Each structure stands twice: as structure tokens, then as C-alpha cells.
């Protein structure tokens, strides 16, 4: 027995040596590089391809957050503020949309539908497609047309369906927000919250187009996760509730939805980390848009770094983006780890 234990320890060391290269790679390429990016963001490597690693202070962050009057009026803080507004609005709309559509489709498909396999495949296939293709297709769909050629794309489709009055200029710089001169807006500004009735707290039409395209790609995936969850709930439980006189609504409200909480958690984590770092979809749908209505921090970082060769500034955006995602991911990983240890 002692010999076996010794052998097991010896083998554990061998095993560890086998995963060691991967662990070192992650240590360098994830954690080392994050630290390196952090340093670049506070370095003097302001412009050009030639690195300069001397310490330069937190100027890049000051520009992003507009900490003084000059920076607050600057393009960096304007673009960054628009990007943060957009990415948070996008994430909330996209999450809500995917959960509502995905859950509803899963509930419908769970009811003995003829051709279930067909519907499931149709709902899910966009998942296999690149965001670049998705973005290009939806950009084509959202081409609004003009007075010369008439409506095109989705607006033309509305016209064919007799809904010609719906013809937004999808490419415009419209931002929907609480009007400052409305009752709500006036009462907000009277208590010093005028910011909430400004375009800084709003959703642009551009972000709505992004949300629809992203939902097209990933709501079917959400459906698949919920369907797997629904199929995992034993029939006895539903029957018992029905015998006790629960209506269908009560059944979902008090039994099924609470039981699907773990699924909802994974959906939120997976979708939110995709949407917070969304980049390729925005590029394919035409980039930041007029007045940055479609801009997101991930795109801003790439443009600033590789378009304008402003490395410290780009690195700072990268760091803020990482912090944004970490707020979501680190608690999730900590909880999962604890649950694993309990098992």
C-alpha cells in the first residue's frame, strides 16, 4: 500500500509536469500580458510603434474619463462615454431579448411540437456562423434606402407587408432617451439628475440594429440551453403541481422558472461576456457610426491602438474593458469553485 502511494505521488508529479507547459503559457499569455498591458497604459508609449516603457502616469485614464475640463471636452472622453453607454445598453437589451425569446421558444418546443427537430435546427444554425457574416448580412438588411431608390432591405420588407410607415433610417445618429423637456425630464433635472434625461443615458438606433443582429445569432443558443433545462425537470413534479390545482402560469412562475435558475446564470455569463467584448459584429456592421452611435470600447481600443498608433491610450481602454468583464466573471468563477469544493 505504501509502495502504491509513493508511486501515485510520483505519477502525480509526472502529471503535473505534463500540464505545466500549459499552465506556464496561461500564466504568461493571460496574466503576464494583462500586467504588461496595464504597464503600457501608464507608460510614456504615447505614439508610434516604438515602445517606451518609462512611467508616464495615469494621463490615458484621465482622457477617457474626462477628469478635467480640457479632457472632458476632448474626443477621447466623448467616444469612450458613448462606447460605455452603448456596450451597457447593448448588453442589457441583448440579454433581455435572448432570455425572453430563448425561454419562450424553449417552452413552446417543449410542448410536443411536430417537427421539433426541424425548428430546433433552424433556431440554432446562426450560432455556427461568424459574426462577420452575420454583421454583413444584417448591414445589408438594415440598408434603409433613400428617396431616389425607395426603401430597401428590411424597410422594403415592411412595405411589402403593408407596414410601409415603419421605415427608420437605421444608419442615422438617433439616440432614444428621456426628453429633457418632458415632465419626467424636468423633475429629474430639478433634483440634479439631468444626466438621466440626456443622450448620455439612452439607446441609439444603431445599438438596436446591433442587438437584433446579435439576437439573431444567439437567441437560438439560449433556446437550446433552456430546452435542455426544461427536459431535465421530471414530469412528476409538473403532474404533482397540477394535481394540487396549480395553473400553468403558477406552475412556471413558482416551480419551473426557479428550477431553471442555474441555466439562466450560465446564459447570463456566456452572453454577457460575449456582448461586453463585442467587436467583430460592430466592425462588420459598419463600425462606430455617426457620432459614435454604434461605438463600443473593444472597437475603440483597436482603432486607438492600431488605427492611430496611440498605444498607452489603447491599453487603457483594454484595461477598463477587462475590469468591466471581471466584475461579472470573477464572482461567477469564485462561486463555481466553492460549489465544486462542496461536492
Amino acid at each position, binding site marked *: 500500500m505504501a509502495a*502504491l502511494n509513493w508511486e*501515485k505521488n510520483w505519477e502525480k508529479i509526472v502529471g*503535473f509536469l505534463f500540464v505545466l507547459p500549459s499552465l506556464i503559457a496561461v500564466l504568461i499569455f493571460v496574466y503576464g*500580458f494583462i500586467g504588461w498591458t496595464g504597464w503600457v497604459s501608464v507608460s510614456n508609449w504615447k505614439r508610434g510603434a516604438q515602445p517606451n516603457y518609462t512611467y508616464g502616469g495615469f494621463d490615458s485614464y484621465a482622457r477617457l474619463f474626462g477628469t478635467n475640463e480640457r479632457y472632458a471636452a476632448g474626443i477621447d472622453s466623448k467616444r469612450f462615454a458613448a462606447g460605455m453607454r452603448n456596450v451597457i445598453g447593448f448588453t442589457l437589451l441583448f440579454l433581455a431579448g435572448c432570455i425572453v425569446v430563448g425561454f419562450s421558444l424553449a417552452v413552446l418546443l417543449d*410542448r410536443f411540437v411536430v417537427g421539433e427537430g426541424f*425548428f430546433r*435546427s433552424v433556431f440554432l444554425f446562426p450560432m455556427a456562423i461568424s459574426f462577420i457574416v452575420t454583421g454583413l448580412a444584417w448591414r445589408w438588411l438594415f440598408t434603409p434606402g433613400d428617396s431616389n431608390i425607395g426603401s430597401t432591405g428590411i424597410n422594403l420588407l415592411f412595405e411589402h407587408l403593408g407596414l410601409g410607415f415603419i421605415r427608420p433610417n437605421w444608419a442615422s445618429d438617433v439616440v432614444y432617451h428621456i426628453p429633457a423637456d418632458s415632465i419626467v425630464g424636468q423633475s429629474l433635472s430639478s433634483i440634479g439628475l439631468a444626466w438621466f434625461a440626456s443622450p448620455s443615458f439612452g439607446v441609439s438606433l444603431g445599438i438596436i440594429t446591433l442587438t437584433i443582429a446579435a439576437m439573431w445569432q444567439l437567441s437560438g443558443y439560449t433556446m*437550446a440551453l433552456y430546452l435542455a433545462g426544461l427536459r431535465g425537470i421530471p414530469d412528476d413534479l409538473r403532474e404533482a403541481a397540477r394535481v394540487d390545482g396549480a395553473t400553468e402560469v403558477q406552475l412556471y412562475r413558482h416551480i419551473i422558472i426557479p428550477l431553471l435558475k442555474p441555466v439562466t446564470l450560465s446564459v447570463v455569463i456566456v452572453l454577457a461576456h460575449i456582448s461586453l467584448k463585442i467587436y467583430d459584429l460592430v466592425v462588420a456592421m459598419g463600425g462606430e457610426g455617426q457620432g459614435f452611435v454604434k461605438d463600443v470600447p473593444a472597437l475603440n481600443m483597436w482603432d486607438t491602438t492600431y488605427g492611430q498608433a496611440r498605444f498607452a491610450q489603447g491599453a487603457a481602454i483594454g484595461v477598463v474593458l477587462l475590469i468591466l468583464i471581471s466584475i461579472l466573471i*470573477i464572482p461567477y468563477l469564485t462561486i463555481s469553485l466553492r460549489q465544486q469544493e462542496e461536492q
Partner: protein
Amino acid sequence: MTTQAMIPAKSQRRHFKIGRFVIYFILIVFAVFYILPVYLIVLTGLKQYNSNLYAMWDLPPIISFADCTNPYFFCFDGFYAAWFGSQAVIGMGQAFMNSVTMTIPATILSTLLGSLNGYILAKWKFKYADIVFAFVLFGMFIPYQSILIPLILTLRSMGLYASLSGLVFVHVVYSIPIAGLIFRNYYATIPNEIIEASRIDGSNIFTIYRYIILPLSAPAFVVVLIWQFTNIWNDFIFAVTIVQNERMPMTVALNNIAGAFTVPWNVQMAAAFLTALPTLLVYVVLGRYFLRGLLAGSLKG
């Protein structure tokens, strides 16, 4: 369809007659919503540039490829132009070869590495293995914008910048968390008793992997191979940052075609369809494994 057998419908569920019609109506509306963009991509790709925009949703009155000079006929001109490119943009044909050259080795290498890591992390847990793994998993969620600057500098100094081998290397490294996760979750379902029993019979860490784990691994391998293939094929951020020359993969080439205002929209849509085709084929042929991969990759984090 291929996903039919995946989730068996449970019998003895009460039928509700009211609302059956509504259920099918909603499902069909959504099916149309999901199919619509693909319909338009294919339709536009097959049309001619001078065809009427007002008829962009309509099928031609006659389905025929007979005469490309007739704007009412379908035509492969768009696909031809997309595949061979022009002086301004790289053809999708060359980009397709680049994508294949990059995706296949990256997929195979990352899958093999994932199997090895998953095996050790599930069956030969060293001290603090779970905590270490949680730190590895974090790498799966990071925005690549937060590591891009050092990555490019490092690739340059390694001589891997602007090459497909550089892209392969990057995909293998950043796939360590997800590939390890799926294999680890799969191997955790293999009972430890089997391993203990074979240890008593004199097997060691290598022979157990070779004769017990590997023969049981086929489902996990299929899942990870499909997952990796679609993700690496569809990647854009690494590809556009690392390879912008004639070795660029399809997603980058497609984006260039879309960005070049001189490229007609039928060519753009043909190029989009060509880019989507390989992963779509994988999905259609191996869809149920694909779904299994999605569930394994996301339900357990």
C-alpha cells in the same frame, strides 16, 4: 434533422388543444426570422449587380442560369468574382486555403492538448488543482483587447507575426482553458474505480491514458474538434491583428471585401455565403455533437 435524437420528447405530457395553432404560428414566424438573412444572402449572391433593388426580396420570375446578360436570370458571376478576387481585394478562394491551412492544425493541436490537460486535471489532481484551474478558466473570458499589444510584440520577437503559424500558435494557447474544460468535465464522468482497478493491475499514468481513457474519449474529441473548428474558423480579432497580408483567413478577407466600396453587393453576399459555408456544413452534418459541445462548454463553468 440531425439534432432530432438529441433531446427525446417525453411522453405522457398533457396536450393543450387551445393555443396549438398559436404555438405553430409563433414557431413559424421565428423560423422565418432565422432563415430570412440566409435567404437574402444566397439570393443576392446569385443576382446580378444591375438587377432592380426594389426586387431585392423577390425570386426571379424564371429560375435560370442560362443568360448572364439578362438581369432577370440568376448568375454565378458574383460567386466567380468573390472566389477569384480582384486587384484590390484578395479572392475568397485564396482566403479559403489560408483558413484551411490555419484552422486544421490549430484545431487538432488544441484538441490534443485539451485532452492531455483534461485527463490530468480530472484524474491526477495535484494540490490546489481546482484553484489553479479556476485561474486558467479566467483566460477564457478575458477580452483579447487586454492582451493584444503584448501579444503582437511577442509574436514579432518570436518571428511569428504576420504568418499563419503565428495564428495557429495563438489559437492553441488561448484555447487551453475551453478545451481543457470540456475534456475535464467529460473525464470526470469516467468512474475512478476503473482507474484504481487498472492501477492494481500494474498500469501507470501513461498506460491508463492510452488503454482506458483514450478509447473512451471519442465523444469528447468530436465535441471539442467541432467546437474548436467553428471558433477558430470564425475568429476575427486575432486574424485581423496578426495577418493582414495575402495569407489572411476568410473572415478578414470578407471584411475587406465589405469595406471596399468598389465591390458590388452581389459579390459581397457571395463572399459572405462562402465564408459561412464550411461551418454551416459542419453544423448540418454533425449538429447534434455541436449542440452537445455547446452545452458542455457553457453549462459547467
